[in-house]
């Protein structure tokens, strides 16, 4: 997925993590991260567990999370949003779906 995101989101600086635990480490290392693209199915710590830890950290309230997952049932989406996701995109996705959500978040942040 790294290369895919690298091409799709080439206008943004990106940091990668291969599981939830590593993603929390990356967030600690890079305090300027303001958006996380998150998969649910990951080894060690899955996306929902990561999200729960992230939302429990009040110092990270400003971080938006877009879940991009193959889990596409309504209850999956509801679970992700309840866990604190900002948006939920089902795979297969199109480039513009992600860019649309990011653009909306940017506008919201700028307003």
């Amino acid at each position, binding site marked *: 997925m790294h*290369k895919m995101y690298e091409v799709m989101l080439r206008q943004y600086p990106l940091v990668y993590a291969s599981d939830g635990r590593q993603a929390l480490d990356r967030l600690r290392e890079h305090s300027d991260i303001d958006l996380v693209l998150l998969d649910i199915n990951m080894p060690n710590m899955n996306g929902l567990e990561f999200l729960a830890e992230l939302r429990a950290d009040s110092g990270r309230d400003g971080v938006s999370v877009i879940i991009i997952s*193959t889990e596409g049932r309504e209850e999956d989406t509801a679970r992700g949003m309840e866990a604190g996701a900002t948006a939920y995109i*089902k*795979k*297969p*996705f*199109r*480039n*513009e779906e992600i860019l649309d959500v990011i653009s909306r978040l940017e506008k919201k942040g700028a307003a």
Partner: protein
Amino acid sequence: MNERSTTESRLSSSAVPGRDLLAELRATLERANDLLRVVETSQQGAAVREAGTAEERISELERRLATADSDVKELASRLVDSEHQGGRLMNLYVATYQLHATLDPAEVQATIAEIAINLLGAEQFVLLLRRDEAPEDEARGYEIALIEGFYDEEQSLYSGDSYTGGDPVVDLTLRDGVLRLGPAAESPALAAVPLRVQNEIVGALVVLKLLDHKPILRGEDRDLLDLLSAHAASAIFAARLFATKDRKLRTLESLVKLARGE
């Protein structure tokens, strides 16, 4: 006498012009009345005409507004189409870029899996590649280079490391190189995508199940399948070739070093 006559004459002459003046005044008044009627009539006509013109203008403006509305809708629809097209092309670009961005065979295979899952929405699929070995090994069938989403051990056709035939749609695609979309009565394959290297069929990507929330393959998926058909195998073969040559090069370098006593 003469003076009297003159006075009478004056009276008489003054009386006649008075009557004339009165008649003239009456005539003038009548003309004025006529003119007034004409003016009033023309004013009414003008008002009616103006009202008519305004209505015409309103309906003309409404027509133009309707045309403009229709144009805006048409443009919006075209914009959506072009954005959609842009998205499709972007996905294809991303897929092609990814396929050819590495010469590591494992990475190329992972890329094919990513394309199949993330861009196509495949949950269960198999990548079959013709074996490089001699023709006598053909009986061993096609190498199962990649298998994804099989949690059921009963899938006998794709168990082990070889596919030796059995799915008529897949077998046909491997023979004639035609991309087939299913499912068909005789085959569970939703898509059998031939893989080509220099117009030679060297394998197939077989999609057996899509993600639950993606009921069917859409028209735009066909572009992606065509792309995989043209690029996936060549990317794998290029990567394998590079890996083989690299390995041979390292062996030769080691031998040279050994020969030199280094």
